[in-house]
């Protein structure tokens, strides 16, 4: 996909957040008392349930809305969500699996060169924002893809976007901009 570089850039997805609905009311107390690996938070009104495989942490609300975080791929997220629904089914609730949607994907990527942040900001005002007093990285937002980048001077970046495809496209888009402000490493 990276036509502008010789070697492929490794985009590693570190977190996928997804939500789905069970379309039925859930009794949090039952889940809290009869499930393993659950944490009940009555002040907020939700139950945290952790699955081991795939490693997923789910926030379960009594309305039937569930948010799953911690998966490393979209498929994993879906599998984990289904596992979770199956678990709830076994606890006795009439769950249905509906409205599954991946909400956020976080990925990290490392460029083989260092980046001159000040020049990068100058070239890309006002989309890029750099405040060294507050945060060591430049924040670059792509509006139409709804993706946000954090670019560090060492060449590593973190990307967040609505899905994996958007993230990949966003990295491709930003690569040439980074390439022109690179600093060739001497070692």
């Amino acid at each position, binding site marked *: 996909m990276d036509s502008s570089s010789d070697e492929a850039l490794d985009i590693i997805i570190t977190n996928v957040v997804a939500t789905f609905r069970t379309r039925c009311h859930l009794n949090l107390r039952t889940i809290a008392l009869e499930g393993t690996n659950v944490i009940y938070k009555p002040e907020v009104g939700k139950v945290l349930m952790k699955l081991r495989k795939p490693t997923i942490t789910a926030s379960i609300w009594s309305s039937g809305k569930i948010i799953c975080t911690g998966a490393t791929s979209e498929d994993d997220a879906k*599998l984990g969500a289904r596992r979770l629904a199956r678990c709830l089914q076994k606890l006795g609730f009439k769950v249905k699996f*509906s409205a599954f949607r991946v909400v956020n994907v976080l990925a990290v990527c490392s460029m083989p060169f260092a980046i001159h942040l000040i020049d990068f900001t100058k070239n890309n005002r006002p989309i890029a924002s750099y405040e060294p007093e507050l945060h060591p990285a430049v924040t670059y937002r792509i509006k139409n893809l709804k993706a946000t980048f954090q670019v560090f*001077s060492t060449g590593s970046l973190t990307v967040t976007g609505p899905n994996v495809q958007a993230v990949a496209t966003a990295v491709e888009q930003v690569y040439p901009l980074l390439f022109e402000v690179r600093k060739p490493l001497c070692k």
Partner: protein
Amino acid sequence: MSSRVCQTCGGSDIDVDQARGSAVCTGCGSVLEDNIIVSEVQFVEGSGGVSSTVGQFVSADGPAKAPLLGSGFHVSVGKESRAQTLQSGKRQIQQLGSQLQLNQHCLDTAFNFFKLVVSKHLTRGRKMEHVIAACLYLVCRTEGTPHMLLDLSDLLQVNVYILGKTFLLLARELCINAPAIDPCLYIPRFAHMLEFGVKTHEVSMTALRLVQRMKRDWMHMGRRPSGLCGAALLVAARMHKFRRSVKDVIGVVKVCQTTLRKRLTEFEDTPTSQLTIDEFMRVDLEQECDPPSFTAGQHKAKMQQLEQELARKLDEVEGEISCYKDEIESELEKSRPKLSGIYAAYSKEISQSTPAPEDEDVLSTTSEPEEMDSEDADLQAATQHLTQDFLCQVIQEEEGHGKKTDEGFCEQEAEPETEGPRAFLPPLSVILGKLPSAASLGLQTFSESEASTKPSDEPPESGELNLEGIDDQEIEKYILNDKEVRVKTELWMKQNEEYLKEQKEKEDRINKEKEEGTYKEKKKKYKKREQIEASTVGEAIEKMLERKKISSKINYDVLKDLNGSTGGSSPLTPDLPSGTPTQKRLSRRRRKTSETKPDFSTSTIIMRKRFRCLISATPKKKALPQAEHATLPAAEAKEPEAELSPDAIPDLGSASTVAPPPIEEEEDEVEEECVSALQLVGDYGCEEEEVF
């Protein structure tokens, strides 16, 4: 004015005489205008021949002082608020700015930013302090003054990141691209604070050079500029034989010790640090370094690689050592002295158990027995075999050295068996990797992984749960059995007693109220606006006011007096015969305000304010008169509407999403009402301005 046409003759040549204040047509001589209001500056000669201007300068920011006579207070209820905001903002800016020692030009610029911010409604929901601070910092950045966000946060005692957030938002909204911070800007300021006396300038120069060198070595990327400055100043001071300690510098520069030391270390790593002072002042090295965090990352990667290699090499060495150990053991066996008494019994026991496959039992009973209830025998045998070898050899190597001479060898053998797995896990885990951890910790996980299936394909989109690829057995493990449930319930109940008590009390309270009939169900607030349903006019007003927030800038007392002085229910019972239509209009007004779109904002603002005045002024009023009037509605309403519609339709062309006819009628009412309200109330002079 200049292109006016004379009504009499049609000529366009009109002579305007400013002195007389008249406009006369030169064609026919007819006077078009008399008493023109003159807006020129006039001069008057005062005593002693001094000429001065007539009149006052009025500030463009609105009536700041001395409201006009009589009707003055209500000059513009809306504008007054804005003017007040700007005034207080200006005051705060002056205050804060003088503490920072900013010059007047900067303060004026900051005030201009503030005006922009207020006009864009960005002050809503934010503390005034934060907004002011952000405006000031914006000015500092654009002017390039050596003020840090930290200084502002120190003065205000606010978290610097909160100020930063506000600052970033304002910069984005106002489209102001502040140039990046240059550490060189701060050097003179900090040098001055460090009191170098006469040599301040020289030290500054040296420090500047150092900072520039650091910039070229990529040390400033992503770091706070004050840290760099601190390091540079420290070195420069030492170079010029000033004794400034780290503590002095960090007090001035506002970073912590660790940061300063880190910067110094990083600078030390660059080749420039190897130069002598004179060389540094003269020569500039060409080579640039990599950013320090990058080198640190690479260093870490290298260390990891080295560790892996070491681990591999250790394995090989292990193999060699084990051979030697075997030989030595056999030799020692032969030459061991015969023991009597207790030790004999021990040695017999152990020598019996060591070679047998029940070794695992010994291990398991001494170490973690509970994990040994797994089903997989093969794994166990393998682990047992491995532990047998490695345990004996490696542990003996570590712990046996000191003990060899003291106690008997039989005891040594006993110890590794017993203590081996436990004390042993940390060092082994590094060398051997996963095997001992699997043996001692969770063989369950092994069995689980074997039993599980691979992830499935994408199931079709439906409400039903696709059970492909989900292993029920595994899921069962996530659910506790009855006994466990009971235990957990007990624990949980104990833990959350307080909360449960609260919940119970709440329920009791609700039940009691239900019985008494005073229970008010609290509906959840939805973002979509609901229609106000009220049986009486008064109710409707109340409900609407509940929803819309009443402004804090209206002085209700005065309004109360106003309404009170003109007698009880003055606005509602006007002199005009259109009393009842007014009532109906009121009711319709209310409906309108609840449905209205922002297009009619000005008129609704008027309405809203009037309502508030009315409501606040007339709490004691009974709903009865209003109710009566409100019931008049439909029939009589039609008549005035009919007359109004032809007039008003051309005025208000825009229609909202509601059906045009009703809206137009309502709009007409609005316009109509504005005029009549003026007559009614008399002193709402402001409405004139607002309507237009």
